[in-house]
């Protein structure tokens, strides 16, 4: 039962992710990305981590994607010229690197014993509730958490300054 759900969500996630890259209209791409995020959120639910799932939707779908769309609409791009992001001959080594990486991943996957002995659910590690998560974040991982928030704050301030300067010019 769970496997069927997982496969459905995963397949949809991959398909929509492809849509993000392949569709021509930026708004359609944005929709695909949104669908992809929702599928990922569903997978989080399957992993007994509803909090992460909801946060995924809340932050990515509810806020970040809306900002994406805002910018797209501001620029009013209807049919984007799909530029090839690299000229022809340069694509060969890139493709090579990608193939090697892909192969590596496949081999790692196949040789690892995780496939045979799946680890416990994320839920059993953290119990999945918000309270548990909060305790973990603010007791066990307090320092990294604070560091990350300071870094974010710096990035935040930096972004505002950059945006402001641009205006004045």
């Amino acid at each position, binding site marked *: 039962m769970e496997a069927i759900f997982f496969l459905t969500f995963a397949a949809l996630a991959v398909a929509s992710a492809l849509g993000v890259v392949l569709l021509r209209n930026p708004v359609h791409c944005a929709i695909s990305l949104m669908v992809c995020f929702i599928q990922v959120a569903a997978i989080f639910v399957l992993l007994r981590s*509803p909090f992460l799932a909801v946060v995924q939707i809340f932050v990515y779908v*509810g*806020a970040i994607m809306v900002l994406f769309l805002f910018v797209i609409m501001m620029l009013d791009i209807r049919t984007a010229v799909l530029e090839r992001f690299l000229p022809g001959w340069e694509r060969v080594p890139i493709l090579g690197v990608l193939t090697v990486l892909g192969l590596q991943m496949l081999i790692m996957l196949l040789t690892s014993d995780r496939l045979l002995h799946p680890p416990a659910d994320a839920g059993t590690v953290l119990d999945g509730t918000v309270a548990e998560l909060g305790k973990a974040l603010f007791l066990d991982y307090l320092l990294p958490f604070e560091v990350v928030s300071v870094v974010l704050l710096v990035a935040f301030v930096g972004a505002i300054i950059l945006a402001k300067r641009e205006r004045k010019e």
Partner: protein
Amino acid sequence: MELALAVALITAKVVIVTAILLILPIPLTWLERKIAGHIQQRLGPMRVGWHGVLQPVADGLKLLTKEDNIPVEADRRLFKLAPIISLVPPFVVFVAIPFGDSFSLLGAEITLYISDMNVGLLFIFAVAGLEVYGVIFGGWASNSKYALLGSLRCCAQLISYEIPMGFSVIGVVMLAQSMSLLDIVNAQADVWYVVYQPLGFFVFFVAGLAEAQRIPFDLAEAEGELGAGFHTEYSGMRFSFFMISEYVVMVTISVLCVILFFGGWNGFLIPLPPLIWFILKVGFFIYLFMWFRFTFPRYRYDQLMAIGWKVLLPLSLANILLTGLFIV
């Protein structure tokens, strides 16, 4: 057998809730027009049925039979999708909303909610946030300047007001020690949270008005400036989808106000069945929404942004701080 029964029960509940929500705009539009009429010293609809009660039905028939217009240069698929996107999330929200505790029927305990999630509150915010996509896509796909301006406004507005709204309920969560709406209501059995959280309630309610796109924050449709904003180009049933969605969001915000700050189905003084208490309280907030609509003008776009970021956000943060001090 157990599983089949549970699934059947959930299905039945979903069907009932959906049906109620779909029908709800009928009495609500009638009520809104009547309230508008009486506020404006006139009678409101009087012709169809007793005091115009059947007016919404006539309106519904009219909308059903209207020509379905799609602008020539519109993004047709997205244009058709937008009203549905805008309609679905407000309905999904009700999965997490409890209408009461439980009652027993034929010996079985039947709960008055579809699901009691431990992240219920967050789920509601996350899903309700998706409604904005309908507006954005609707405005963008219409290929009309007024619609585009409307959806741009809507974008910025919803993003800005979601933040103070989210922060304003943190106080409630801190008091109730839970994000489950059921726990929150049960925690208010003695004292409603509006007593401890007047500031939080104020921020939540104002931000809620903005989220529901009602006057004084209905800038996305602002008929005075933008014709009809994001749904300028919509007609017939597609248009009514946006309207239904607006009403359902209004109900959602009212329900949340009641659950988070006004004790849910907990009554006081007068012993009434919990469900009746709940409906009465929600009705009061819906009336408040309508009253505002026919009293206030709307803010200007930049003023709206200033209120969101410079007034509501600091207030909601101050509220968290105060609640923290209070608990400690």
